[in-house]
């Protein structure tokens, strides 16, 4: 090796090592996420059913179909509604749990394990329990209702109840880990702040409002963004528990995208819906961050 190339190696050593490590990952990312991301956005402007013919350019017609169709519009509303319920209850319950975990009690470690456990099991394996409990004749819940002298309920005929059970399952599965993050946040707040506020005569509610919540702002942003992205694309629970029913009342947009794309090969509409749902997700995240950053000033 001559000196010139050796000094080239030495001069660019860091960069060469860095690129040779980042390169393969970036390539992998490009092939399995980058290309689909761009292709998905392009798909929204075409009409294509996957056959080996050129996709037909339709401009914004997929989008105008979306906004003129009650079915799609109500799907997006259902995603927001059911997702919103999941998010709100998950946030409140996990925060309550974290506050309880913050109290010094014995046996906390074991309890924490129990709350984390649902997240360690696959959705497909645990959702079956809810499905079985809701069997109209011979299911556990109706058996219980009959024993209590109440009328059994045909759960799968009632939109309200099915939404309720979807939310229950979502919270059951996701609340433990969220509580752990809240707890880490609660414990990172400087205890002297509480002491100082107490000296100033703050009551419990004021402590929460002026010490705890401001101290949790960063954690809250992290949790909210995580949850927003999560619930806006939630469809696995719906698919396995209700398959969109009864009468499409739990047919969230993400489930519709899944069916448009992978069952009826209507790639154009799947693409347009994906772009709309993706943009909406980003928009909600930005609005949240905007509000949150504003308060910081």
């Amino acid at each position: 090796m001559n000196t010139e190339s050796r000094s080239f190696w030495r001069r660019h050593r860091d960069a060469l090592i860095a690129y040779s490590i980042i390169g393969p990952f970036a390539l992998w990312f490009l092939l399995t996420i980058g290309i689909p991301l761009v292709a998905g956005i392009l798909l929204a402007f075409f009409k294509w059913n996957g056959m080996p013919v050129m996709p037909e350019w339709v401009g914004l017609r997929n989008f105008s179909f979306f906004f003129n169709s009650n079915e799609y519009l109500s799907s997006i509303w259902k995603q927001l509604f059911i997702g919103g319920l999941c998010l709100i209850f998950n946030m409140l319950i996990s925060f309550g749990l974290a506050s309880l975990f913050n109290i010094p009690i014995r046996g906390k470690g074991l309890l924490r394990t129990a709350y984390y456990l649902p997240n360690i099991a696959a959705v497909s394996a645990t959702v079956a329990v809810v499905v079985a409990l809701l069997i109209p004749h011979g299911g556990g819940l109706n058996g219980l209702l009959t024993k209590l002298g109440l009328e059994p309920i045909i759960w799968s005929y009632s939109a309200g109840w099915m939404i309720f059970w979807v939310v229950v399952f979502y919270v059951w599965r996701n609340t433990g880990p969220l509580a752990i993050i809240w707890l880490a946040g609660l414990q990172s707040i400087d205890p002297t702040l509480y002491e100082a506020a107490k000296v100033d005569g703050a009551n419990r509610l004021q402590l929460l409002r002026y010490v705890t919540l401001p101290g949790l702002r960063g954690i809250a942003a992290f949790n909210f963004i995580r949850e927003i992205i999560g619930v806006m694309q939630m469809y696995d629970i719906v698919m396995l528990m209700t398959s969109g029913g009864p009468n499409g009342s739990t047919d969230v947009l993400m489930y519709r995208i899944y069916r448009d794309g992978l069952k009826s090969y209507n790639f154009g509409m799947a693409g347009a819906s994906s772009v709309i749902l993706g943009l909406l997700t980003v928009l909600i995240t930005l609005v949240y961050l905007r509000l949150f950053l504003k308060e910081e000033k």
Partner: protein
Amino acid sequence: MKKLGRWLALAVLLLGAVVMIYPFLFSLLAGMTRRQEFQNLGEMLPLPKDPTFQAYRSIFTTGLIRPFFNTLLRSLWYAFVISGFSVMMGYVLSRLRFKGRTFFLYFIICANMIPGVLTLIPTYIEMARIPFLGGNDWTGFGGSGLINHPAILYVLLSPASAVWIFLFRQTMDSLPRDYEEAAYMDGSTFMNTIVRIIVPIQRPIIATIFLNMAIVTWNDFMTPFIYINNLKYTTLPGYVGTLVAALQQVGDRDYPQIFALSTISVLPPVLIFLFLQRYIVQGFANAGIKG
């Protein structure tokens, strides 16, 4: 007063814990019932009158051992590859100075936030139309590409994996450079330094990445559910997913079979969690604080 509050808190937490554990117990017991018995049971806790392990045994007799090993292999693959990339890239992004470093950092942070909805359908099309694979010609048509192909379980990348690279970089940033610099002084090469110095020091965080990746991969039933329609190539949670989805249709139901398979598919991650949870939970909380 303070004591009463504590007891109350404990009571609420205990009650909640029962709710958290209950489905696991239900699943375990329901797997021991008989088919006719379960359908007419009407109990919140399906205690079998005459417990049978037939449904549990069926994993050995009906060829389900193969999906089990597929799940295992897939979990190990992603656990190894993503921990490897996290260590190497986290190190590089923390220690080396090169053009595009800031860009890659932002890239990693943003990648983590890409909504999966945008890539679900196009990724499927790409995998189906990939040239020269699965009977496809050079234009990508003629066959089915990687759909229903065993390799599909190993080639996809989840944008969420980027969070681990970021987490490792954060941990590297808070580690003094003295150790590596001493090694470099003694003439250690780049790879040697990472393997001999960095990996041992950062063992806890690597355990976090490895275990979390393994569990998340194990539980990802959607990928096999979407891409694979063959018992030989699917994973256990994926197969359970197809069985549960079929419950929405009219037809024969074998609940004990579903619950036995659910229980078996839940068991490995739960056992790992019970023994190694300090790595899993700690890393998760750290991701929250640092992220």
